[in-house]
């Protein structure tokens, strides 16, 4: 599998959803950034501060109300 292909899969909606689920489950190794193209990308937590974009994980982790 090419790097490009792997990268595309990392941004698939299922992967994005799993990042959020993992965050709630206490596995904080990967976070979400909404980049300038509006795409949600998964980024290792150690690199989050060096990536431009909106840090979506903290916002998304706030409970969704009913």
């Amino acid at each position, binding site marked *: 599998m090419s790097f490009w292909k792997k990268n595309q899969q990392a941004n698939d*909606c299922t992967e994005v959803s799993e990042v959020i689920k993992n965050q709630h489950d206490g596995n904080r190794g990967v976070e979400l950034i909404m980049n300038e193209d509006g*795409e949600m990308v998964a980024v290792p937590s150690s690199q989050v501060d060096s990536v431009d974009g909106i840090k979506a994980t903290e*916002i998304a982790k706030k*409970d969704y*109300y*009913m």
Partner: protein
Amino acid sequence: MTEERMKDEFYALSQAFSPKQFRLTSSTLTIALQTNSKRIYTVRMELVNHPYNVPEVYVTDPKPLTDYTGKPMLEASHPMHTLTGKNGWTRICHYGYTQWHPGVYLYQVAVKVRVWLEVYETHLKTGYPLDRYLTTAEG
């Protein structure tokens, strides 16, 4: 919404989204959100006594959203993170009343909606309800 707050909201939205994507008035925010799959959704936020009340958030296009089985999502559903819709629009859950305060900006709501939409698309693929991925607060 005061004129000053509107300016602040517009500025904050412009940092996160292209100004071509949204239209802000004193009572509504309409924003087009594109998911990673390149699908585009139109979202309407109704702002009553903003920023003191939690905005009502509807997906107005597609109208209505449908679930994995093809059923319109117009009813309140705990596992799907929806509230009762109107005008054929799906109403989605976002900030809880206990978490809402005037310091929350609409761009933050839009980011939560953006995440909701990714999880919704996962639901369409897998059939899992949204609460598999998103936590819920009551009230």
